[in-house]
């Protein structure tokens, strides 16, 4: 998959968050996943799966615990290498 620009990544991350967390509107970049958006651990698993499936980006396990806000996710999605075939 081609490089993701930050605006496009934000829009896609917001779409995934709306679908997984059943939100009424796209969350702001500064919104906090747990405190503001109500994400639970099972939601995080769904989010990671959706990013991998829809965006072709796998966020490494070691950074997942540091994902506090929507902007953090965008940062990691942009930085993550595209998922290989197979």
């Amino acid at each position: 998959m081609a490089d993701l620009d930050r605006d496009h990544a934000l829009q896609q991350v917001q779409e995934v968050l709306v679908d997984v967390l059943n939100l009424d509107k796209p969350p702001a970049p500064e919104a906090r996943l747990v405190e503001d958006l109500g994400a639970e651990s099972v939601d995080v698993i769904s989010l990671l799966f959706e990013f991998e499936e829809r965006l072709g980006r796998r966020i490494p396990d070691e950074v997942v615990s540091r994902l506090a806000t929507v902007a953090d996710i965008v940062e990691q999605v942009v930085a993550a290498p595209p998922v290989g075939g197979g």
Partner: protein
Amino acid sequence: MASPAPGRPAAAATRSPARRPRPAARRVVITGVGAVSALGPDATSLWRACLGKRTVVELIPPEWRRYSDLRSQVWSPLGELARPQSALLGRVEGKRLDPSGQMAIAAAEEALRAASLPLAAVDEKRRTYCVADWHAERVGVFMGTGAAGLHSMLGNAANVALSPARRRLAEVIERLGATAGARGEGAARARAAMAAELAAIAEDLRAPDLFNPFAVATAMANALSANLSIKLGAHGPTPTFAGACAGGTMAIGRAFRAIRDGECDAALAGGSEYLRDPWGATFRAFDAVGALAHGDFAKEHINRPFDEKRSGFLFSEGGCAVLVLEELGAALARGAPRLAELRGFGEASDAHDLMAVEPSGAQVRRAIAACLADAGLDAKDVGYVNAHGTGTPGNDGVEAEAIAATIGRHALVSSTKSLLGHTLGASGALEAVVTALTLRDQVVHPSINLERPVADLPFATGPTRAKVDHAISQSFAFGGHDAVIALSRAD
């Protein structure tokens, strides 16, 4: 196993235990049904198809023939219906469910709507609900299946097993492409041909591209009942019965008893199954033991329950049905629609063979007799038998003889599987829906492709108007599980 108590006569172990006195008789009614099947996305389309002799028979996916030599070449596909939309499911929530679980949610939603039981949201974000008219601790969920979750487990196992080889092949193919022109035209052609061959091998390593992190949840057969209980906040008993082809009938029978005996007041009961995989491996498993319909008939005529030229069952991709069961008094109090009364349940076990019905049919007859006794019905009361009627050489002859011996030759008989094919653990539930609608509408659906019946029974070969006050629906499974339910016209 514990030894018998000292002094107890050995014969005591074989005597039937004394029956517990039953509390004041509670009656159980079916107040709503929902179904997903190859014949349509809801119970109405299923029933209309049955009355209209509509069947869905297609050639198997051509790629399955690349993996196996298969005797049977036909199946009954569900297509998009395997992943039905439901207002109870979020856009991505379905990925946490096997198709068998997703169909169960959709069928339950339809059944509750048909029963005039509106849902109130409990948690908007998690899309959980409750039935306002029900006391959650008195609601059970009873589902049956053969192998719910098998599809998901096979897919995730393939992802794990095949992904390294797929990745390496992709790398080799890429390298071959990059150096294709390096050593002259002949070598380039050879490399291109090799790349094409490797690509074909990679194509055969079919597997989902991603490992689903919900692999455990999607593979759990008990997720069928668990998901429904979570969605609807049902805190009563929520078992899932792995009863193969009798799973749905077992589940409905057990739910009936739980309500009748006072363990709960309402229940969702049914069965669900989904059996497609990328390679036709599940299909092959049944084909390998000669269980599937095959032969020279045109595909629409190859599935022939109770016909002398039957050759096996029509493999269905899957299906699901859910029934809403309620205690009669509660149903009357809320003015619920009543499709039929659930009247009795009988079971027996062949204790004979994992894949063949016991040829004397003794336990099949016992199960039918036990059901009639449980229902307080005489054989002459039964006006319709929704037969197991798989179309396998082993089942149909034994079943026909058992019907003649226990019910007699007066009740109309038909096989829903002649139209729908065999949905294994869902079949008993789909057939319970059909039987309930038979009682409601007083019309029996036909068996198709029945030209020379194996027995002298009044098989319905066209939609048949009849006065049917009582009916039975029976299922006999791999494993020897025999289960029969009795239904009566709602009074």
